[in-house]
C-alpha cells in the first residue's frame, strides 16, 4: 500500500494546512498531499478514492490546480454506493464545469442515476444536472427530467423543476415539453415544489410565447388565489420569517404575475385587488416585508396601467426613500429610476431627497442617486441642480469625482440655457476637478468659447482668475493657456467687460507669467507644454514689448528631451527672430471653430470612447427599456459551451492592433511619416518591411522597431479578411495609405495593352533633387523575370556622395540588386548612376510589380533620405 495515502485523513490534512504559518509552508503541504493523491490515483486505489476527492475539493478551494482528480470523480459516480456517488457528484460540481470535455463521459451515468430506484440517488443526479448541465446534456436528459416532474416524492419534483429551468435556458426549444407539467406544479401545496414550479413557469414564459399565452389563460386565476392564501395565511412556524409566511414565495408569485400582466390588460385586471392588498397590508418594519413590497411595486410598475395602484406604488417608494435603513433607500433609488418613465412628476417631488443621497457616504447609494439625478435634470431645474452638484464636487471623495465630473459635464453640455452659463459652470468644474475632465469635454469648451465672440474678454479674464487659485488642474491650465494665447490682448486691455465682472488689472507680463508657470510646472504634460509654446508665440506678436522675454522662455525648451517641444521651440524662436514680417499674419487669432463639425466628429469618434459612454447608459435603463430578443441572452448566459465565438472578435482584435499602432505613431508627429508602414496594417507592406536591408541611420531605427509589429500582424492574416478589411476602412488613418497601396496593383499607367517584349520606360521617382528612371527588358521564354535598369539623375546643384539605392518588394516578388555603377552622383544632371535590378514575379499575369525604395546620400555633408513607392509599373511585368 502507498505509504502516503494511508497517512493523512481529511481532517488531518486540513489541520496541517491550517497550522502553516507562511504561504510557502502551505504550498509545501499541499504539494505533498497532491503527490500522495496522484500516486494513489495511479495505483487505482479504491479505498481512498472517496477521501482523495474530498481532499482535492479542499485543495481546490484554496486555489490550487486539481484537474488530475476529474476522472476520479467520474469513477466515484459510476460506483454503486450512495456515499461514493454523493462525494463523486459533489466533486463533479466543484472541480468541473460544463465546458470540460470529460463531462461528456458523465451523461450516461447521469441518465442511469436519473432512472435509479433510489430517490436519493435520483436527487443527487438532478442536483448535479441542475448545476453543470450543458446544452448537449440538456437535449439528452430532458425526457428524464420531464418524467421526474411528476415523481411522487416532492424533493425530487422540486429538483426536477429547477433542472428544467436550466435546461430551457440552455435549449429554449425544449420549453414546450415542460409547459404542461410546469403548470401542474402551480397547484401544489408543498411550498418547496410550489416555489420551484412558479420559478419554472416564470422562465418558461420568458423563453416561449406559447407558454406565456398558456399561463395567462389557465394559471392567472389560480396564482392570484395562491398569493391571496399565502398573504392571508395564519402563522406557519415552518415558513415564518419576521411574522410573514414565506416571503420568498410571495416574491416569486409576484414576479410571475409581473411577467403575465406585462402587456395584457385583462390579466392585469385580475391581479389588481391582490396587488393592492399586498401593497397596503404588508408589514414594513422588517426587511422581509420590504422585500415583498419592493417586488410588489415592481409588478405594479410593469403591468398594464392602473392609476390608483401606481400612486400607491410611488407613495411606497417615497416612504422607502425617507427610511433610515440604507438598504431600503438604495432600493428606493433603484425603483425610482424605473418609475421615472411612468410618472416623472411624482419622482421630481423627491428631488431634494435624491440630491441629498448623492452626498451619502455610501458609494452604492451615491452612484444610484447620481444616475437618478442625471435622469431628473431638465431645462427648468438644470441651474439649481448643477449648482448643488458643483458645490458637492469640492467635498466629494477622490474616487467619486471622476463619475461626478463626467455627469456634471454631460448635464451642462446637454441643458445649458446660454453660453455664458455654460462657460461659467465649466470653469467651476475645471477649477474643482479639472484633472478628472475628459479630453473631449475641454475640447468642446474651447469650441464654445471660440464661438462666443462677445464673451472672449470675459472668459479669458475668468480663466486668468481661476488659474491663480487652481493652477494644479491640468485641463484648466490648458484652456487658460489657449485662451490667453488667443485673447491675451483682451485680457490686458479689459475689452468687453460685462456688468457682473469685478474689475481686474492684468499687465502683459502677468499674462506671460501664467503661460510661463504652465510651461515650467513639473506636472505639466506634453500637451500643456506644447499648447503653452504656441500661446507664447501668439503672445509675442500680441505683446511686442514682452517679445524678448517670451523669446527667452521659448529658447529654454530648445534643449528639451521631447522631440516635439524641441523642434517647436527652435522653429518658434526663428519665427520671432527672423520673420517679423510674417509673424503677425502667422499668429492671427484662430478662425471660429465650427461647432457642428466638432460635434459630428465627436459622434463618429473611436469605438473605444463610444463603448465607455455606453457603459452607464446600458446600466441606466435598469429595465426601463424593453429587453432585446432572447437569443442574445442565451449567448451571454449559460450556453457558453455551444455558443459560437463572437465573430466580431477578429475584427476587434485587428482594430485594437491598429489602435495600438496608431497611438505611438500619432504621438510623435515629427517622425510619423516614416512610421506609416505599420499603420496601414496590410500584409503587403509588412512584407516590404520584412525584407528591407538593415537600416543604419537613427531615423530608420523606428522602422526596424516597427518590424516588431509584424509578428502579431502576421498572425492576423489567419483572421477573416472581410471583417478585417472593413475594420481597416473604419480606421481613417489606416485607410488612405492602404488605398494608395492597392493602387499599386491596378494598372493606372496609360500604357497600351501590347504584350510584346518591349516596355516603355517610366519615371519611377521624382523629387526636386532626384529623378529615377526605370528601363525594362524581358528575356524571351522567361516572362517571370524582368530586368530593370535604374538611372539616377541629380537635379540639385550639389554633388551627392555615398549614394545608396535600396528597394523592397512584396513576398510574391524576388529582387536581385546588382552593384551600382558609382556611388557619387554629379550635380546638375551632368551624368548619372545606373544600377541593374532583376525582379522575378512568382504571380506573373496575376499581380503587377510593386516596389518601395529608399535612397540615401550625402549632400553638403548632410545625410539625406528619400523614400518612394513605385506603383506605375507597366502592365504585364
Amino acid at each position, binding site marked *: 500500500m502507498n505509504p502516503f495515502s494511508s497517512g493523512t485523513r481529511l481532517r488531518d490534512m486540513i489541520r496541517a494546512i491550517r497550522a502553516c504559518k507562511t504561504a510557502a509552508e502551505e504550498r509545501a503541504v499541499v504539494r505533498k498531499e497532491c503527490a500522495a493523491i496522484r500516486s494513489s490515483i495511479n495505483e487505482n486505489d479504491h479505498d481512498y478514492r472517496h477521501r482523495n476527492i474530498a481532499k482535492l475539493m479542499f485543495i481546490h478551494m484554496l486555489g490550487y490546480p486539481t484537474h488530475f482528480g476529474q476522472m476520479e470523480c467520474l469513477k466515484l459516480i459510476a460506483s454503486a454506493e450512495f456515499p461514493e456517488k454523493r462525494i463523486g457528484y459533489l466533486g463533479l460540481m466543484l472541480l468541473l464545469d460544463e465546458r470540460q470535455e470529460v463531462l461528456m463521459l458523465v451523461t450516461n451515468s447521469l441518465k442511469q442515476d436519473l432512472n435509479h430506484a433510489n430517490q436519493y440517488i435520483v436527487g443527487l443526479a438532478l442536483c448535479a444536472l441542475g448545476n453543470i448541465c450543458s446544452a448537449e446534456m440538456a437535449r439528452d436528459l430532458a425526457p428524464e427530467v420531464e418524467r421526474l416532474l411528476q415523481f411522487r416524492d416532492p424533493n425530487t419534483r422540486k429538483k426536477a423543476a429547477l433542472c428544467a429551468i436550466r435546461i430551457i435556458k440552455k435549449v429554449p426549444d425544449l420549453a414546450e415539453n415542460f409547459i404542461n407539467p410546469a403548470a401542474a406544479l402551480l397547484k401544489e401545496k408543498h411550498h418547496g415544489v410550489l416555489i420551484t414550479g412558479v420559478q419554472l413557469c416564470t422562465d418558461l414564459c420568458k423563453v416561449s410565447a406559447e407558454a406565456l399565452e398558456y399561463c395567462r389563460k389557465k394559471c392567472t386565476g389560480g396564482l392570484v388565489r395562491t398569493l391571496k392564501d399565502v398573504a392571508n395565511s395564519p402563522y406557519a412556524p*415552518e415558513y415564518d420569517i419576521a411574522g410573514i409566511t414565506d416571503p420568498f414565495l410571495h416574491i416569486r408569485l409576484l414576479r410571475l404575475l409581473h411577467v403575465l400582466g406585462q402587456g395584457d390588460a385583462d390579466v392585469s385586471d385580475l391581479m389588481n385587488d391582490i396587488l393592492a392588498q399586498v401593497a397596503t397590508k404588508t408589514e414594513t418594519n422588517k426587511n422581509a416585508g420590504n422585500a415583498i413590497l419592493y417586488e410588489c411595486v415592481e409588478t405594479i410598475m410593469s403591468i398594464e396601467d392602473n392609476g390608483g395602484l401606481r400612486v400607491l406604488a410611488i407613495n411606497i417608494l417615497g416612504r422607502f426613500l425617507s427610511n433610515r435603513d440604507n438598504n431600503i433607500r438604495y432600493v428606493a433609488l433603484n425603483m425610482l429610476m424605473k418609475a421615472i418613465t411612468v410618472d416623472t412628476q411624482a419622482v421630481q417631488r423627491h428631488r431634494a431627497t435624491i440630491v441629498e443621497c448623492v452626498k451619502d457616504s455610501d458609494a452604492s447609494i451615491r452612484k444610484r442617486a447620481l444616475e437618478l439625478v442625471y435622469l431628473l435634470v431638465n431645462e427648468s431645474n438644470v441651474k439649481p441642480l448643477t449648482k448643488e452638484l458643483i458645490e458637492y464636487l469640492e467635498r466629494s471623495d477622490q474616487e467619486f469625482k471622476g463619475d461626478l465630473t463626467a455627469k456634471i459635464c454631460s448635464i451642462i453640455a446637454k441643458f445649458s440655457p446660454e453660453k455664458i452659463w455654460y462657460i461659467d459652470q465649466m470653469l467651476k468644474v475645471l477649477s474643482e476637478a479639472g484633472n478628472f475632465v475628459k479630453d473631449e469635454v475641454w475640447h468642446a469648451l474651447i469650441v464654445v468659447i471660440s464661438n462666443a465672440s462677445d464673451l472672449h474678454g470675459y472668459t479669458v479674464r475668468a480663466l486668468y482668475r481661476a488659474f491663480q487659485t487652481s493652477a494644479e488642474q491640468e485641463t484648466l491650465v490648458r484652456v487658460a493657456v489657449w485662451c490667453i494665447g488667443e485673447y491675451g490682448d483682451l485680457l490686458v486691455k479689459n475689452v468687453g467687460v460685462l456688468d457682473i465682472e469685478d474689475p481686474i488689472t492684468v499687465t502683459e507680463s502677468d499674462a506671460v507669467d501664467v503661460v510661463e508657470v504652465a510651461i515650467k510646472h513639473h506636472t505639466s504634460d506634453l500637451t500643456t507644454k506644447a499648447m503653452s509654446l504656441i500661446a507664447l508665440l501668439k503672445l509675442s506678436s500680441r505683446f511686442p514689448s514682452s517679445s524678448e522675454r517670451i523669446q527667452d522662455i521659448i529658447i529654454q525648451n530648445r534643449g528639451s528631451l521631447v522631440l516635439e517641444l524641441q523642434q517647436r521651440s527652435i522653429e518658434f524662436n526663428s519665427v520671432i527672430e527672423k520673420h517679423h514680417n510674417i509673424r503677425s499674419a502667422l499668429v492671427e487669432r484662430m478662425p471660429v471653430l465650427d461647432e457642428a463639425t466638432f460635434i459630428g466628429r465627436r459622434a463618429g469618434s473611436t469605438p473605444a470612447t463610444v463603448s465607455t459612454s455606453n457603459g452607464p447608459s446600458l446600466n441606466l435603463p435598469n429595465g426601463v427599456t424593453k429587453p432585446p430578443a432572447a437569443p442574445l441572452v442565451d449567448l451571454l448566459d449559460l450556453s457558453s459551451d455551444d455558443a459560437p465565438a463572437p465573430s466580431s472578435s477578429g475584427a476587434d482584435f485587428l482594430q485594437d492592433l491598429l489602435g495600438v499602432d496608431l497611438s505611438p505613431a500619432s504621438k510623435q508627429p515629427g517622425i510619423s511619416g516614416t512610421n506609416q508602414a505599420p499603420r496601414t496594417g496590410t500584409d503587403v507592406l509588412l512584407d516590404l518591411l520584412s525584407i528591407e536591408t538593415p537600416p543604419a541611420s537613427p531615423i530608420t531605427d523606428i522602422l526596424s522597431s516597427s518590424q516588431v509589429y509584424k509578428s502579431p500582424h502576421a498572425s492576423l492574416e489567419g483572421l477573416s479578411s472581410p471583417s478585417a478589411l472593413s475594420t481597416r476602412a473604419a480606421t481613417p488613418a489606416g485607410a488612405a495609405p492602404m488605398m494608395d497601396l492597392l493602387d499599386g496593383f491596378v494598372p493606372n499607367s496609360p500604357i497600351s495593352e501590347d504584350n510584346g517584349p518591349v516596355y516603355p520606360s517610366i519615371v519611377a521617382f521624382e523629387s526636386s533633387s532626384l529623378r529615377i528612371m526605370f528601363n525594362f527588358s524581358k528575356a524571351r521564354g522567361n516572362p517571370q523575370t524582368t530586368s530593370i535598369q535604374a538611372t539616377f539623375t541629380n537635379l540639385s546643384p550639389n554633388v551627392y556622395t555615398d549614394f545608396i539605392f535600396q528597394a523592397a518588394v512584396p513576398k510574391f516578388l524576388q529582387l536581385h540588386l546588382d552593384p551600382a555603377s558609382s556611388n557619387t552622383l554629379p550635380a546638375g544632371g551632368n551624368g548619372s548612376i545606373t544600377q541593374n535590378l532583376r525582379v522575378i514575379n512568382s504571380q506573373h499575369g496575376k499581380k503587377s510589380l510593386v516596389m518601395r525604395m529608399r535612397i540615401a546620400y550625402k549632400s553638403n555633408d548632410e545625410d539625406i533620405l528619400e523614400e518612394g513607392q513605385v506603383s506605375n509599373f507597366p502592365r504585364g511585368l
Partner: protein
Amino acid sequence: MRIELGHRSFVCHAHALDFARNLFASCIVQRLELNWKTKLCLFSSIEIHLIPSCSLLNFPLIIGRMIRFILLQNRQGKTRLAKYYVPLEDSEKHKVEYEVHRLVVNRDPKFTNFVEFRTHKVIYRRYAGLFFSLCVDITDNELAYLECIHLFVEILDHFFSNVCELDLVFNFHKVYLILDEFILAGELQETSKKAIIERMGELEKLE
C-alpha cells in the same frame, strides 16, 4: 484579453498579450523617440486583464435572473465556500473571489449590503468574521437575497448547532451539501429550514 492603453481599452485575443509585450519591450529597449506620455501609456498597458471567453459576469443579463455565485469568505479573504452557477475559468474564479473580498471587507456596517460588481451586483452580509456574498443580476430583488443569506446562515447554525468558522472549515463538504439542498441551479429550492435539516438527516443516515 483586455488591453488598456492610456484611456483606451480593448478586448482582444491572446496574441495581443504578446503584441503588447513586444511593443512595450521594443519601446523601452530600443529607446525609441517616444514622448514620455506614450511611454507611460505603455507602462500602464502592461496591466492586462484576463477575461475568459465566457465572461458572463461582464454582461448585463436580461432574462433569467439567477444567482451567479455564492461566496463565503473570512475577513482575511480565505474562501470557505465558493459555488458558481455559471461556468468560469479557475483563474477567473480566483480573481472574482479576490475582488469581491476587496469590495466587501472594508465597508462600513452602516452602508448598504449591496455593491455593484462589474455588471452585476453583490449582496453580502457579515456574520462575525465571515462574509456571505451572493452575486445576482443588477435588476434583481436585493432585499429578498439579503433574507436568503440569513436563512442559509440559520440553517447552518441549526445544523452545526451554534456554527463557527472552524465548523465550516472542517466540514466544508457538508456545507456544500446543505447548500445543494437550499439552492440549485442558481434558484431557491426550499424555503423551510426544517425541511432542509430533515433532508440532511435522511441523507446522513445513508452514509
